[in-house]
């Protein structure tokens, strides 16, 4: 099987632009409180979201925020990979970007210019920015879109279609999405606090997470250093309910197991060094994921450390797993998980280990990333230190 490496990363989050800004926030593990969007028409009880701060005083247009975040993360990832200036014209290049809402601002009153334009234009905008003729795919699997995009990019390389793929996810504030979560009673009034006993929903965030995927052969030919190797991916679908996860968790369990099994040498549960869970803060989801992790990781499962990224940046929708993979790449390079944002009280129904206060060295050089979504769309990715 063709080996695929992550050779570049880029991130935009409520902590600012750049993977370094994200890592600094991860290292500080400070409690972050959500904000209110500058939208006078956001008529809802809890208009809460973790907003991306303006960069150098520049605010992206309301109908182009998600694309602007994606472009910024793309530029960073390509520069980080050393492909911004030096990529050979002969390199076969692909772009795969996931998003839950696309440019939702285009179709929300007072935010867009009116008229019809497809909302899911982020991948095409990034592609135009890159200026490379190749392939360009847009995946809209809601909150798992970013990880399906990255996994699809890996498959494209393994099938020999392309040498390099820019993949990830991006999402921005959407009045409709936030209104619907309010209506469903799924917004936590305090902050995003997955696995906390007192959690009562999630809190959205804005952001983008992009990675450069590259065949190991292509990376070696140009002397590029990888952050991580993609060992395996598992896909599944609950086929159960529009919004609720299957309480049995069978399909998220299978997605994790398939990710472990896909590696050239099958990865045993004991070889999982850490997990970045989907962990949103919604009550049932966190319990089901906890139980599925216990099933997959076996008797030592409760000892495997988790890094709960959403507690730091909110639930960034289609960008969430893109940012999780960026975080996982940095964790693998550092060899340890940063301390988690402190919880008030771990939910006793969630038998997971969320180390606080100090970094936790990885016992094994692997990180499992999970992403789930409305519609029961599940995907897991296993990353291994590229060294």
């Amino acid at each position, binding site marked *: 099987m063709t080996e695929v490496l992550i050779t570049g990363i880029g991130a935009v989050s409520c902590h600012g632009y750049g993977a370094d800004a994200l890592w600094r926030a991860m290292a500080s593990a400070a409690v972050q409180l959500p904000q209110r969007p500058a939208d006078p028409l956001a*008529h*809802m*009880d809890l208009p809460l979201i973790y907003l991306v701060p303006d960069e150098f005083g520049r605010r992206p247009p309301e109908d182009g925020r998600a694309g602007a975040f994606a472009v910024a993360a793309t530029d960073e990832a390509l520069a980080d990979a050393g492909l911004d200036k030096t990529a050979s014209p002969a390199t076969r290049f692909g772009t795969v970007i996931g998003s*839950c809402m696309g440019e939702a601002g285009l*179709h*929300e*009153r*007072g935010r867009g210019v009116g008229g*019809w334009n*497809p909302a*899911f234009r982020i991948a*095409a905008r990034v*592609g*135009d*920015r*890159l*200026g*490379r*003729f190749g*392939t*360009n*795919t*847009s*995946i*809209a699997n*809601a909150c798992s*879109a970013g990880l399906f995009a990255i996994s*699809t990019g890996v*498959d494209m390389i393994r099938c*020999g279609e392309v040498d390099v793929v820019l993949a990830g996810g991006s999402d921005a504030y959407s*009045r*409709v999405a*936030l209104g*619907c979560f309010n*209506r469903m009673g799924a917004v936590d009034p305090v902050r995003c606090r997955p696995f906390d006993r007192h959690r009562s929903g999630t809190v959205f965030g804005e952001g983008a997470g992009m990675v450069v995927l590259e065949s190991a052969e292509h990376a070696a030919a140009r002397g590029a250093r990888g952050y991580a190797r993609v060992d395996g991916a598992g*896909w599944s*679908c*609950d*086929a159960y*309910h*529009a*919004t609720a996860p299957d*309480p*049995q*968790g*069978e*399909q998220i*369990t*299978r997605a994790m197991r*398939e990710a472990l099994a*896909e590696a050239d040498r099958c990865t045993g549960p004991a070889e999982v060094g850490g997990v970045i869970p989907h962990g949103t803060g919604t009550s049932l989801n966190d*319990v089901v994921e906890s*139980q599925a992790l*216990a*099933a997959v990781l076996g008797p030592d*499962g409760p000892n495997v450390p988790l890094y709960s990224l959403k507690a730091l940046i909110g639930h960034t929708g289609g960008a969430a797993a893109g940012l999780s993979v960026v975080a996982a790449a940095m964790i693998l390079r550092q060899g340890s998980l940063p301390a988690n944002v402190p919880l008030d009280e771990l939910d006793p129904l969630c038998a997971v280990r969320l180390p606080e206060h100090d970094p936790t060295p990885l016992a094994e050089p692997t990180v499992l990333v999970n992403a789930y*979504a*409305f*519609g029961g*769309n599940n995907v897991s990715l296993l990353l291994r230190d590229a060294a």
Partner: protein
Amino acid sequence: MTRAPEQLRTPVAVRSPIADPVITGIGLVVPWSDVPERALADLDRTGGPEPVEPGWFNARARLGPRGYKYLPPAGQYLLLAARRAIQDSGGLEHVPAHRRGAAVGTNSGLAEVFDTMDRTVVESNAADLSPVTAPYFAINVLSSRLAAEHEMKGFQLTLTSSRVAGLEALETGTRALAVGRCSLLIVAAMEHVLPGSADEPVSEQGATALVIESAAAAQARGVRPHGRCRTRTGFAPPTAAAGPAGRRRVGDLLAEALTAVGAEAGDPVHTVLDDSGVARAVRDALAPRPLASTVAAGAGCLRPMIRVAGLLAAGAGPAVVVVATAEGNIAVTRLEPDPSTVYPSTGGPPC
């Protein structure tokens, strides 16, 4: 009620990459026909659908008496098209639930619902949103009903690139089949009207669905496939494609895609193009080939898939469908209705 962790022991699927996918089922529903060949013939005759009467799709009559009232229209069309495709293929029972995958393309499937929800929030309050439609802020939820109805637990993908999303679903889903993420695949496209009264672009309504599986599986069941197809999408950055050099690159990209799908010089070409520079460059690059039909792109991704479904159902000779858009997305698919045809080896599965 949740199970104890030790009970959660779902077996991991045995990956069986599929290198010889064939189409064994076709389903379609559009306002002017439910028959793929007729739908295509009318599309060619009129250049697009006649004005559509609201309420043309009676979900209760066509899907069943209960459970569909609050499913947005595009999801209703999808369910019916998929049911017909599955019936045409002889059912899904021969494939375990966890080996069934779905890839669905759409651009405007939720546009009207989204606009209505935004109006409610703006003019009233989110508390006044309907709780049954609130989940449909996310476009992939439209397809979740398809997965639930047919126990499609392998995966469900929603693809959304402008106007090529249906063919993008065909390519992405077939790639997943090729690498063994499923054993049977439903590829679909669905659209519904745009909100408001904008004349351009033309709204599309309806859905198409194809059932795809391995030739060996079809043969084992005694099912004669409708044919095969290979799809390749591409991207021509609109800014870079604007100049003469860029237009040549569009031609090169198109040539690569045509080669990748196994197109031959004499294949009739059917185009679905908008009025963009990228589409004009594609049209010019196609000039030496015989153009069998040209249809103006609608607002969504349905028209190319009506072409694919109609040609396959008609059992006509080999044909190529080409789509190009202002956003830079290009898609090429080659249909080979004769399933006995063997594609020249490209050194790997038809990803």
